């Protein structure tokens, strides 16, 4: 293990990543605040017109059934509701500010997979009676640690990728074997640095090991969503590999195959509508 990373190196790494826009941070901390009102959100958004424009583009994706129909965030909130707009603002903020590590990192595949997991998690949360928008954000960010590792530790990241390709194993296994920690550890560090809600942090940190978490943890939902997204093959990664599905996490959702099949077809439809809005230059 020539490139072993320590948690101290990880923390130092994430401190060099860009900060989330202030409005996104404020919105994240408002997840516990049921009284957040539309005027407050609109005032916060007015301070960041570029972010407001990106959010509107997402809101106008055909996924939301509004193609070309809303011209202001106020209208979007009227039609979609505050909670969905809040998730869209954070989505736009994260995609905009995070760096693209370099040619050695396939950023298009990364965001395609992340969006697929987010949409699967949103559907699964509805079955599990969890907050769909928190599940969506946890899904969107579940692999954010991969981006951090690739940005801060280029050589170590490439060594892990080579190992993964040679052994045809899961990326987290390659990272543990070559670096001593994995992207879930890095994701925990970055979501802590960005002050994400504890439930989202936990889901990011434990999406490959959800069995020990509480029954209402989002980690199980994101784990199942991750497996389903790989199975749907939406990332377009040629050597993609479906991870093993946790029986504990699956049983907690209480789904059967016909039900999940219907969800998956709807997720694919959502994905095709939303991906051109999220990554217009990469589709």
């Amino acid at each position: 293990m020539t490139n072993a990373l320590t948690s101290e190196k990880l923390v130092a790494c994430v401190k060099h990543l860009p900060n989330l826009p202030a409005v996104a941070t404020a919105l994240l901390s408002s997840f516990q605040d049921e009284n957040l009102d539309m005027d407050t959100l609109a005032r916060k958004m007015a301070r960041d017109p570029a972010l407001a424009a990106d959010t509107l583009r997402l809101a106008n994706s055909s996924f939301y059934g509004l193609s070309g129909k809303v011209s202001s965030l106020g209208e979007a909130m009227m039609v979609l509701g505050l909670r969905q707009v809040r998730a869209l603002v954070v989505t736009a903020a994260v995609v905009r500010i995070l760096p693209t590590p370099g040619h050695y990192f396939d950023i298009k595949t990364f965001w395609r997979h992340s969006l697929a997991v987010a949409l699967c998690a949103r559907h699964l949360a509805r079955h599990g009676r969890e907050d769909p928008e928190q599940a969506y954000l946890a899904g969107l960010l579940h692999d954010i640690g991969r981006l951090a590792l690739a940005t801060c530790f280029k050589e170590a990241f490439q060594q892990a990728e080579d190992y993964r390709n040679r052994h045809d194993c899961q990326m987290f296994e390659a990272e543990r074997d070559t670096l001593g920690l994995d992207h879930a550890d890095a994701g925990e560090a970055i979501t802590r640095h960005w002050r994400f809600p504890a439930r989202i942090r936990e889901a990011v940190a434990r999406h490959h090991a959800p069995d020990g978490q509480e029954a209402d943890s989002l980690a199980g939902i994101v784990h199942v969503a991750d497996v389903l997204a790989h199975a749907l093959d939406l990332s377009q990664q040629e050597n993609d590999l479906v991870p093993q599905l946790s029986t504990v996490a699956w049983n907690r959702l209480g789904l059967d195959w016909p039900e999940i099949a219907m969800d998956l077809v709807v997720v694919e439809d959502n994905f095709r509508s939303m991906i051109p809005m999220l990554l217009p230059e990469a589709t």
Partner: protein
Amino acid sequence: MMSYGHTGTQGANPDDGTKQQLPLGKARPGMWLAEAVLDGRGRMLLPGGCILSQGLLAALARRDVASIMVRTNHGAPALLSEEDKERASRRVAYLFRRCNGDELTRSLAEAIQDLRTGRSA
């Protein structure tokens, strides 16, 4: 489109622009849904353009959907070609290449095979 034979709801489509309504009992795996199926509250159950599978037909029957609109080709319901089924089947088998020992993950592989090809592995 992907270069390695993905056959999702946007796979090769032998559609000649016509469609017909079929009682659900006459619909078969591998047919193409021509229009979205909505529930009683107007919420989309399935989008138009998807390939029908055993699992999807079972889920529609469970919701008491009486009939659906399918795409037709030369007057008969259009069907996914055997070539597309084979390509999709090989891709699913490749994606699940490391899951042979796990029963639950194998069940997921079978559900995805059904979704992509209208038949179990």
